[in-house]
């Protein structure tokens, strides 16, 4: 049995369990799932095309030299920078991160990209400042960048 089959069976099982417990909530859950699908699938299509185009037109050496372990800790910082500017759905972050790793990016750079893509958003900065103030926002984001960098170092050593 493949991993995919197991996931599907688990999801189906949870769905049945949920349905038995509460029909209304389960219907709502399926509607949420549909909404998320509508939101995520087109982004995935775009990211997959982008991955294909990058694979065809950008030489592997570019990724390896910028994000590879040969580039040392600077690769982590570059991964973070890429993540902070990436405007993609979290669900699309992992496929693209996998592509980066296959193209020669180190695990440190990849985790830098993943974490800052989820946690640091150039587009959400104005909202964050509006809700929490500039002092909180700057502190929070700088700390995030530093801790993610540390995490990248750990990933480089461990993985």
């Amino acid at each position, binding site marked *: 049995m493949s*991993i*995919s089959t197991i*996931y*599907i069976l688990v*999801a189906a099982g*949870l*769905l049945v369990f949920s349905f038995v417990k509460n029909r209304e*909530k389960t219907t*709502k*859950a*399926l*509607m*949420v*799932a549909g*909404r*998320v699908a*509508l*939101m*995520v*699938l*087109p*982004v*995935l*299509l*775009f990211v*997959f*095309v*982008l*991955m*294909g*185009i990058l694979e*065809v*037109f950008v030489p592997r050496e570019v990724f390896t030299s910028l994000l590879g372990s040969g580039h040392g800790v600077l690769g982590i910082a570059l991964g973070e920078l890429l993540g902070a500017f990436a405007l993609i759905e*979290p*669900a699309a972050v*992992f496929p693209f991160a*996998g*592509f980066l790793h296959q193209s020669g990016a180190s*695990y440190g750079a*990849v*985790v830098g990209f*993943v*974490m800052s893509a989820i*946690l640091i*958003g150039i587009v*959400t900065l104005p*909202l*964050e400042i509006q*809700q*929490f103030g500039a*002092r*909180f926002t700057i*502190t*929070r984001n700088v*700390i*995030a960048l530093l*801790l993610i960098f540390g*995490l990248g170092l*750990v990933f480089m050593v461990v*993985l």
Partner: protein
Amino acid sequence: MNMKHENAASEQHKKNHKGSPELVKSAIIYIALAVVAWLGTTIITPQEGIHVAGIVYQTFAGVLAIIAAVFVLIGLIQVWLTPEQVSKVLGKEAGWKGLLLSATLPMILGGSLFVIFPLLKTLRGKGARTSSVVAFLFAWSAKAPLLPLEIKFLGLPFAALRLGAIPILAILGGLLAEWIVDKPLRDAGLEIPER
């Protein structure tokens, strides 16, 4: 006071939550961008265009089942365990226990920053400490509902290490942020409100 905060947060939430027409619009835009990018490639080099189409097809075929399972998982988590419920649990706990819960519980939540920020503002308005708010944010970045995707594309060791490290990052980040953000209050000799 709390009610006001909640209303403001839920309005903010609605404003940032895309309605169906907007959702369809953004879907069309992304599909159009993908098609245009692919057509451009195919016009420049037809051979590579076919190659790219192959990559897209294979990647999609490889993840469709996982993605479907993830969508269902996100839907179920969203109705059975809302961020509001999690923040309610956190609101009851103070001190170290509160920090520890803030650094772990939100790991299983989905949603985007647009949903999480207004919620955290509400939490803060109710007196949550800076450390808990920041820890919540870090823990939320685990994105556990997407775990099947993470394992598929980056492998189990990567996913396990990342998820295992997140509570530690969350606690460190929370304490550090609180120490810096609340510093002017301490310097002014003001007591940090016991919350």
